[in-house]
């Protein structure tokens, strides 16, 4: 499968996953495209579509918590921001994702 096709399949797979959690793909299409492209590259290089804005530790139990969509494992924090850390997903009611602040969990 080529990168472009993989990007589209991740988009499809992940949209299904985040919907019951109250999230949708960011309406910022340029951002979504860029992030999905990074995830395809991360999957090719490191075996899984890891979050493009979180670092790996090479410890499986830790790294699996940042495989996209990682919302189930950071729910409280992301719900407080109304977006996930990298911004690929936002709460369903968000129409202006640029207005959402990015802050660590202890500053919620």
């Amino acid at each position, binding site marked *: 499968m080529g990168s472009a096709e993989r990007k589209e399949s991740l988009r499809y*797979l992940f949209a299904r*996953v985040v919907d*019951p*959690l109250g999230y949708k793909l960011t309406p910022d299409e340029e951002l979504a495209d860029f992030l999905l492209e990074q995830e395809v590259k991360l999957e090719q290089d490191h075996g*899984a579509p890891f979050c493009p804005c979180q670092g790996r530790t090479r410890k*499986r*139990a830790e790294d*699996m918590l940042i*495989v996209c969509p990682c*919302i*189930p*494992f950071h*729910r409280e924090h992301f719900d407080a921001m109304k977006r996930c850390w990298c911004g690929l997903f936002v709460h369903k009611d968000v129409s202006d994702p640029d207005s959402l602040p990015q802050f660590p969990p202890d500053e919620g």
Partner: protein
Amino acid sequence: MSGPQWVPTIDDSKVRDGAYVPVYPKGVGVLLVRTDGELSAIANKCAHMACPLEGGLLHGGIITCPCHDWRFDVRSGALLDAPELSIDTFATKVEDGKILVELKGA
């Protein structure tokens, strides 16, 4: 269109306690799981990226997907970390020593 139907699979004795067996009633990927003596049937497909769950660790009624470690309750099908996400579950019954799985109508 057809309604739900019971499809025979394997002998009940083939599913040991604390273990699972993949079966394919009418081509549908199903895991037959026995935990604490109780039989369950779940889709052999992770809710995350559709990886087959077979090969995953089963412990205390929880199966861990071998791809990215998403954990599901084999009785309810629910993802432990977010129960709104789940894998399909199927009703089962045993007749004449054989496990039948109920497939919903297509």
